[in-house]
């Protein structure tokens, strides 16, 4: 593991006093944090803690009400969107198209026209690129993997994954975890939001605990967040 190597490294993402308000409700209320490259961060917390909102802010899908995010040295997230892979709870795929077809379309959005590369990415997540079934007929586990392939197609430096294991059976979850570890070892920075933190017990470098819109603590090991 390369934790010690990176501990002194410059942070790849700096969040400063991030506030996100939805009408009357503040989903994030002053999140400040730094994250260094090449690690796997598990973001955990109760329902409504603001995990998804934080991830969407990082992805540039939500404009923060206040505060700033700087990624790879810039605060203009739009300009670094090529370095960012985002996987949400919904699959972000067209149900009516096959896996390869989907990926080819999304590759186009990144100006990639290389079918070989699409096929390789699909194989990398453990699916068969020649499968012609529409994604809508995939099982939940296959769909999640396909969704991961979509997030990986442009080989981004930072990966944002929102509950990749939810509603996935234990075996698929383990395979996915293994894949994530490999990606981390290959130098990617990975954020995983999950309710099943135990899944990542051995894989994650750090657990980021969120509560009511703030990061309350960051730990190396996962422990059940019992009441004090």
């Amino acid at each position, binding site marked *: 593991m390369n934790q010690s190597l990176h501990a002194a490294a410059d942070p790849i993402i700096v969040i400063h006093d991030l506030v996100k*308000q939805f*009408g*009357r409700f503040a989903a994030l*209320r002053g999140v400040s944090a730094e994250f260094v490259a090449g690690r796997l961060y598990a973001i955990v917390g109760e329902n409504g803690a603001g995990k998804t909102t934080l991830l969407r802010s990082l992805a540039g899908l939500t404009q923060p009400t206040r505060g700033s995010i700087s990624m790879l040295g810039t605060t203009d997230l739009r300009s670094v969107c090529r370095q960012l892979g985002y996987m949400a709870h919904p699959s972000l795929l067209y149900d009516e198209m096959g896996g390869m077809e989907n990926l080819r379309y999304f590759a186009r959005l990144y100006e990639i026209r290389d079918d070989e590369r699409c096929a390789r990415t699909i194989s990398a997540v453990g699916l068969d690129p020649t499968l012609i079934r529409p994604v809508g007929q995939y099982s939940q586990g296959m769909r999640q993997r396909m969704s991961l392939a979509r997030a990986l197609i442009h080989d981004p430096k930072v990966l944002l994954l929102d509950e990749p294991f939810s509603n996935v059976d234990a075996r698929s979850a383990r395979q996915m975890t293994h894949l994530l570890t490999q990606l981390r070892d290959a130098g990617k920075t990975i954020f995983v939001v999950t309710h099943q933190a135990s899944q990542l017990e051995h894989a994650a470098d750090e657990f980021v605990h969120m509560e009511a819109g*703030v990061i309350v603590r960051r730990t190396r090991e996962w422990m059940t967040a019992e009441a004090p």
Partner: protein
Amino acid sequence: MLRRAFPILGVLTAALLSYGLYEALIGAPIEQSMGEVQRIFYYHAPSAWTAFLLFTVNFVASVVYLIRRSIKADILALVTAEVGVVFCTVVLVTGPLWARPVWGIWWTWDIRLTSTLVLWLIYVSYLMLRRFSSSGQTPLMAAVLAVFGALDVPLVYFSIWFFRTQHPQPVIGGGGSIDPKMLQVALINWAAFLCFAGLVCWSRYRLELLQREVEETEALEALLDSGGAP
């Protein structure tokens, strides 16, 4: 400063409004062909002018919002649209009330009538959008729609110009000759309406601003409460 001025302005507006009412009902001369009905004019036309002015402000505020994302511009756009729709409604109600005895029909597809109706429709749809859109995106969506509406107005005007040429011409105002006393009363009423509209917009603006501030602090407080749990 302005808060102190409010009651004074209020009294002034009330005085102006009552003076306008007196002049409209008693002061102004009786129109020869239409008789007493014509007195509706002193409410009809100034309301229209006020509404137009408010819609113009709405457009400007919307553009400012699109450029600067300023909350104040958004609130200004909202209140001018609301008050403008009210005045526009007054025009649309007084118009047919007047038309019925004078022209014998409630409505005709005359350019002025029709374009007023379309304008009203556009701004009602604007308010509908504001009401229905999910909170975070309302200002942006509304501003975009306001720009579309403003772009539409000249086109509406031109299109209706050529539309259905058989409509009866308005009885007065076509030639442009108007009794100076009548014009004077109309202008007094307009001044009163403008003051009134300005005051309503102002208080509505303050109210909306306060409401948003309250919402913001409420949100933070609610979270501070629940955040203290662990």
